[in-house]
């Protein structure tokens, strides 16, 4: 503390704010902040970061760019949108932090080394996992019925597994389960095979705008050319980004859907009939990017409730008020230990419900919550689609 003395404020107008923030869609509302602290109190990482969200916002307003445009300050946000949905002044603080990351990266600082590696991988291989393009469709070989590959064949729906479910061995079961569920429910769908590229979320969240825009452009061009009515994904991250961030850059013509929306509709229309499975009490963790960013809260619950044998109990914080697992926003990549620590807090809330199984539908939440379970104990984690598949198997 003695080394870094606090600056005396000698003025309250900031060129930084006026020129870079004030006129942006997000920045317009920053002046209305009443410093009520709702953001900080809602923030899963505030207790760790040097500056709280509220302080960051105040510093932005008075133009203290030097204090905030530092990786040590800006790379804690897990992009959970809790502050954004609760802010009484309607300030989208998550997006403001993202904008600050963009500016900082533009100025040559950040992202953190492991994050940079991921972004480079996206630049070079179209996925963050440093794996070759040729392996993107390997997961599908394990299926009995191989899905159609678009655009050679035509289909109404594109299933977009996203990089995590397509590549990571422990996550491929989500892709497999999704394809099988769609297939058996008689949905006319296909995949893009090796032509699929990363949605760009990884780059966008850590502030590498250039890479993000390149991915949006590739994806919109390729997907628009497929002639599908909808794109469905089982990844909350891809979903939130494609649904809400793509339109700010380029038009993605097909409707973007999350798999839980599709399954809920299939169940409602009688196309998919879940059978009874081993009775279990389950609780559901809302992925931030599905619920708060994506706006999907009721569909996953409808699906769970439609499966005979499952009893859903809610955690203390659910739906739009759900607590972040810490896996998003580049936090798991940048500060892995911390991300898992936050997931442990969520695991405690899950345990308190008395449930025996923790259901979610985002590969990031799933990995992070599982890691926390291994480290500090907690409930086993399962993806919603896997439960659906289990119940379909039971019904035949």
């Amino acid at each position, binding site marked *: 503390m003695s080394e870094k003395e606090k600056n005396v404020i000698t003025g309250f107008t900031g060129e930084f704010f006026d020129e870079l923030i004030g006129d942006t869609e997000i920045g317009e509302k920053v002046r209305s902040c*009443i410093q009520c*602290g*709702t953001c900080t109190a809602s923030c899963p990482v505030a207790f760790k970061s040097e500056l709280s969200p509220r302080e960051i916002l105040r510093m932005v307003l008075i133009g203290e760019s030097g204090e905030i445009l530092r990786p040590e300050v800006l790379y804690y946000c897990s992009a959970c949108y809790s502050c954004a949905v609760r802010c009484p002044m309607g300030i989208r603080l998550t997006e403001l932090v993202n904008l600050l990351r963009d500016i900082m990266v533009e100025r040559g600082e950040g992202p953190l080394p492991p994050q940079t590696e991921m972004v480079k991988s996206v630049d070079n291989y179209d996925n963050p996992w440093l794996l070759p393009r040729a392996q993107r469709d390997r997961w599908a070989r394990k299926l009995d019925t191989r899905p159609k590959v678009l655009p050679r064949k035509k289909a109404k729906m594109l299933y977009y597994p996203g990089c995590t479910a397509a590549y990571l061995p422990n996550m491929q079961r989500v892709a497999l389960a999704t394809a099988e569920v769609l297939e058996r429910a008689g949905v006319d769908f296909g995949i893009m095979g090796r032509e699929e590229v990363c949605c760009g979320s990884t780059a966008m969240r850590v502030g590498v705008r250039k890479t993000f825009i390149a991915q949006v452009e590739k994806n919109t061009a390729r997907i628009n050319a497929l002639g599908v009515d909808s794109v469905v994904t089982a990844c909350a991250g891809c979903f939130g980004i494609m649904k809400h961030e793509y339109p700010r850059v380029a038009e993605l013509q097909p409707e973007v859907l999350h798999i839980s929306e599709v399954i809920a509709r299939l169940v409602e229309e009688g196309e998919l009939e879940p059978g009874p499975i081993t009775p279990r009490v389950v609780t559901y963790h809302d992925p931030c990017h599905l619920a708060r960013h994506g706006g999907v809260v009721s569909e996953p619950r409808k699906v769970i409730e439609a499966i005979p044998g499952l009893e859903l109990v809610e955690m203390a914080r659910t739906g739009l008020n759900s607590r972040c697992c810490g896996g998003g926003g580049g936090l798991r990549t940048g500060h892995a230990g911390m991300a898992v620590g936050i997931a442990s807090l969520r695991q405690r809330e899950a345990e308190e419900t008395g449930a025996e199984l923790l259901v979610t539908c985002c590969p990031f939440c799933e990995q992070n919550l599982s890691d926390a379970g291994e480290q500090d104990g907690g409930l086993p984690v399962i993806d919603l689609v896997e439960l659906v598949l289990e119940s379909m198997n039971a019904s035949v």
Partner: protein
Amino acid sequence: MSGKIGVYICHCGNNIAGTVDCRRLAESALKLPGVVVAREYEYMCSDPGQALIKADVRELGLDRVVVAACSPRMHEHTFRNTVEESGLNPYLLEMANIREQCSWVHSEPVAATAKAKSLLAGAINKARLDRELEPRSFPVTEAVLVIGAGIAGIHAALGIAGTGRKVFLVEREPSIGGHMAQLDKTFPTLDCSACILTPRMVDVAREPNIELLTSSELVGLSGFVGNFKATVRSRPRYVDASRCTGCGDCQDACVLAGKIPNEFEAGLSARSVIYIPFPQSVPLSASVDIENCLMVTRGNCSSPCLDACGAGAIDFDAVETTREVEVGAVVVATGFDAFDASRVPQFGYGRYPEVLTALQFERMLSASGPTGGKILTPEGREPETIAFLHCIGSRDENTNQYCSRVCCMYSMKQAHLAREKTSASVYEFYIDVTAFGKGYQEFYRSVRDEGVFFVRGKCADVARVGGRLKVFAEDTLLGRQVELPVDMVVLATGLEPAVGARKLATTLGIPLGQDGFFTEAHLKLRPVEANTAGIFLAGCCLGPKDIPDTVAQAGAASAEAIGLLDRGEVDVEAAVAVIDRESCGGCALCVTACPLEAILLDDEGIAVVNEALCKGCGTCAATCLSGTVIMEHSTDEQVLANIEGILL
């Protein structure tokens, strides 16, 4: 046709002259046929400005006056008076709106001046065709309708009735009293609410000039200032209030006793279907809850209440009644309803029984409330920690943007009473403390001094984690996160417009603001008048406020209503629709178009206008296909002349 027109251009300080070149405007007007004088002045509406006009009318013998200034909504009345005082018929005045429609919305002076010239030329062109019209007046009905009987309606009704006028007091609930009846003690003086309200309620019951219509609502209003016809519908109480002694025996006998959430106790206890709302109810009579009564909804119930009633007051054959009353003025005092806390689930209302709304806590404090005035957790013990959370449903873009004005004060009052009644630690989580009234800062200070702990930060959520109910917030003064274990949480829920306000606004034909509350004709200068003459507003139906402000407004509204009745007659618009009987084909398009039901077809099938009802809106004239309906002061010729002047 006119021969001598005077033109008067107002600078409105810099409002007009800052953008429009008024000198050039005057010069251009002088060139138009018939204009004998064109003057500009800083403030035309001021006395010296008006004197200019008067002098010219007299000395130059003007027969038309055109004022280029603000909107006619603002000052047409002023200048009509000026013209009338100088001996001309007031309808020979014409206004050109070069402020709202020109200088305020344009910044480029040359173009703005050109537009002002066009607007002025149009007005001058029309003025030439203006005809003299005679203002008419009608007698005022000496009675007032007051809607809503909370403290605002009660105070207004008593004030008006005290001058000997008849008041119809319409209350939706079975008893009068409103929210004040639910309160325990009132800030900042901590006088007991019932002790100050009950005598006023009893006064209402005793006042011969007040006719009280409970379980009733306004369903129609026609007529105009001084001469309204109001239709009031009354639900059956199924209990004859004049025979009911208020003994309460029927309540105990009811088969659904203890099954229906008691709204007076804010849901903290349950009541029967036939019930006396609260011990001080006026009228002190039981009433049947139509929605839940088995006899009413299904027609089958052993109806033990009938046997229990010694007075024979219960009558299930009673029916809904509708009656029409004639009044000269209307006072709206429908108050507020509390914000529904389940709309913000993060605060745990409805999920954790320890989380209460402020009204529930108010009932808990009350000695006549469900706990007999004891503060008790759901397990029935005294809480050790209580947190009051401010701004729930107020000052929030996700719910209501406005400040509810009373929550800071009532929270501090409740905190004070909680400290008085228990040994609990008491916390107030606040953003800013709104304590603006007389004695309020002093009260705030004393509550702090007593040891209520203030945390500057809005609560983010309330959750049971680690087995304990906790309040999560930030202490923004220290920049630290707060996780406070508590035994009880009280939500300072904001005030919203009373349920049904929108429907009532439509019935009355008056607007609501964006926030859903009724709007006053002018926030500062006409704070208790609606935009429709003869309708007045008071209390929380205009926006959240405390009892002192509510009562002050109710007094003001009653004084305005009394003033109107005192005048004895009202002037009504002279520019009304007239029918050319020769050309009317009796198609009745105008009859359906008229929003005020002022046009009917007579025995011969020809349209006739009720001049008393006509407001001169012109809808009929615009609808008429044969040019039969002539809108005085906006005849086709006059409107075309106006347009022609603008275009030339």
